């Protein structure tokens, strides 16, 4: 215990002497959260639309008007000729061009099926398919309205047997992507600080060749590793508190769930993430390798394989299997459940168990490697 405390004291002193790194670990995640929280959004709104009206009748103008005046489409361009469509889309001036054919009003009057053409820049498939979905919905609504209007003066009850889903969106009624992204961002920023900080602190010791001194001292590997990681747990907890407060103040992300489960999730996550950092540092000799590996196993995979932006259930099974060892995956999932859904323990334990097991595995491997090195 005394030996462990000595390591702890030494590590704290080293961190205090390097205020720049300390500041980076605490305030950078907060700064980044502010920036990315505002910048990132999946919300497909204000799609820029060009309009080419070949019909130029009152009916065509009325139909076009019914498509705008919502937050989804912004009419920013009126085209005169078909040849302009290619250019407008290739240059990226507009994402979508709506073409109303000649004879639109006449066909509508006759009751024929009348189609307008929508040319959508689908290079970004998410944006493209969402835009198409909105357009179809708006056209269906216009159809329904037009039919009922014509039926109403002719007879008594103007009803048609149609089914409409009435949506009640839970946990995030305005469907703001900030609600969804901020808890995930918090997890990613914590992952970055935790893995990078510990892997560096261990490798620094190796490069300065002070690791030998620690190893020949009577400190046992487990005491050494705990003593070196606990200070970072403390720092990361401070960072976590800071980013959660910012998430609440700036983005209105209220923590609906219990603080107890939030703390448990955070501690288990830090246990696993710091374990990973220690493990990386025990298997690498130089900082160059340490960072490459840290980048390999933390930054890009944390962003891409964790379910932060790309849903894991969509991935092929092999890749889903790979994500089993991606630590932030569980933290992101747990944070979303706790913060947005106020989830009770019986829906959270799989994430908790996974983080605990991964952490144990990382530490066991790290301790074995440290012992061998000694």
């Amino acid at each position: 215990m005394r030996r462990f405390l000595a390591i702890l004291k030494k590590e704290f002193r080293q961190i205090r002497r390097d205020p720049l790194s300390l500041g980076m670990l605490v305030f950078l995640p907060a700064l980044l959260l502010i920036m990315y929280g505002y910048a990132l959004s999946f919300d497909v709104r204000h799609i820029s639309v060009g309009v080419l009206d070949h019909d130029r009748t009152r009916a065509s103008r009325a139909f076009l008007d019914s498509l705008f005046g919502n937050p989804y489409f912004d009419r920013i361009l009126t085209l005169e000729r078909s040849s302009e469509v290619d250019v407008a889309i290739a240059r990226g001036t507009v994402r979508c061009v709506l073409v109303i054919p000649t004879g639109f009003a006449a066909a509508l009057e006759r009751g024929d099926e009348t189609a307008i053409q929508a040319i959508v820049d689908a290079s970004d498939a998410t944006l493209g398919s969402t835009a198409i979905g909105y357009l179809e919905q708006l056209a269906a609504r216009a159809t329904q309205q037009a039919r009922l209007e014509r039926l109403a003066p002719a007879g008594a009850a103007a009803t048609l047997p149609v089914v409409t889903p009435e949506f009640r969106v839970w946990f995030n009624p305005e469907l703001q992507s900030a609600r969804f992204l901020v808890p995930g961002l918090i997890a990613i920023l914590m992952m970055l600080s935790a893995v990078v900080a510990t892997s560096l602190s261990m490798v620094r010791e190796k490069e300065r060749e002070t690791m030998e001194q620690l190893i020949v001292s009577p400190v046992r590997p487990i005491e050494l590793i705990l003593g070196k990681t606990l200070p970072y747990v403390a720092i990361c907890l401070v960072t976590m508190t800071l980013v959660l407060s910012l998430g609440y103040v700036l983005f209105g992300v209220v923590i609906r769930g219990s603080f107890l489960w939030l703390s448990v999730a955070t501690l288990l996550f830090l246990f696993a993430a710091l374990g990973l950092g220690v493990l990386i540092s025990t298997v690498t000799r130089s900082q160059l390798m340490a960072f490459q590996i840290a980048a390999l196993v933390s930054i890009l995979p944390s962003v891409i394989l964790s379910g932060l932006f790309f849903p894991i259930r969509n991935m092929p099974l092999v890749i889903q299997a790979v994500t089993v060892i991606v630590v932030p995956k569980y933290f992101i999932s747990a944070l979303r459940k706790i913060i947005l859904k106020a989830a009770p323990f019986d829906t959270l334990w799989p994430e908790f168990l996974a983080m605990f097991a991964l952490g144990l595995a990382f530490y066991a491997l790290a301790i074995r490697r440290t012992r061998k090195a000694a």
Partner: protein
Amino acid sequence: MTANRQRRASPAAAPTARRPPEEAPPVSIWAGSLHRIAVLLRKEFVQVLRDRSLVGVLVFAPLVQLLIMGFAVTTDIKEIVLAVRDNDRSFHSREYVRTLAASGYFKIVPVTGPEITDDRLLVSAAAGLVVVIPPEFGARLLAGRPVAVQALADGADSNFAVNGINYLNRATRLYSERLVRPLIEVLERQRGVHLPTLTVHSRAWYNPDLTSRNFFVPGLMGMLLLVTTMIVTSMALVKEREEGTMEQLIVTPLRPIEIIAGKLLPFVAIGIVEITLALIVMRVVFQVPFAGSYALLYFASGIFLLTTLGLGLFISTIVHTQQQAMMASAFFVMMPFILLSGFIFPVENMPWIIQQVAALIPLKYYLIIIRGLFLKGTGLAELWPPLLVLLIWGTGILSLAALKFHKRLD
């Protein structure tokens, strides 16, 4: 490795040291410069190739990452788990559920039992949508009257929810239209009116199957190219300084610009190899269509490499330790590049102030170019503005780094 470098550097430096550059005529300054660069190049190539793990990190790690992440980067939503509570159990309600299932968007899970379990389904994310069919569903439709079904959506993942809502709307419209169509003819005859139908014929240009992977995988290539080339360069010079071999390089007659050229060219070569391998993986494994010109792709990638290498070099001139180099490249370069370049989120959706920040990110322009080449088949006529920005960026950051590097030598 250090000892090896010393052995290689000193004999190379010896012959040129006797002939200081300022005494030589202009032509041989060039010849001498080329010779010195060639010598340094050889040393750098030997050094890079000696380090097997570095070659692995530089060439194979990005490829493995491209393979794994290429499969992961998709926002296409295939099977949304849709829980259905059918309180009607009529012909119509069963027919409706069958239409939903046939749409291909949903995996239908029937639920029975107490209503309270519906929210448990959403809390545990066991279902993304819950549809509750009211008891009067079939009766109302038979009577020719509209009916609403209740749909609960899990809004925690807003992107998923938006898509789920879109799909449920579409499948439900299909069902309604099927009910209404035969009725319309009857009504038109009975009441002597024409009932119109308005539809949208959508044509998805550049990506007719709406495969999001075609959009993300080229971006991923740009991302990986940036990460490997920038980090390794930023560390190469810092390492030289930390190991104390920088002084040896400085006392050789090599000029700063020559040292920089010698340091960077091997990474340019590795970058080109990486692009070629990535291109093969993208075309063969992910079947991403390529509509543009390969020559333009290599030309643009070469210019992009100027910016990533320049950036790496610049970082190495302003930081003192490898640790700082890592922190700086992780927080100030990698994260903003991943998140603000338009790799995942469209820049045009960002607030104005963030768009100004994004305008400073070279990866943004490279992504415009490679997505244009892969998907749209655009040529130099459309792509020269981003190319020009990249060129200015690259030469600017390289000159700045060279200038800083020069100052540090004094």
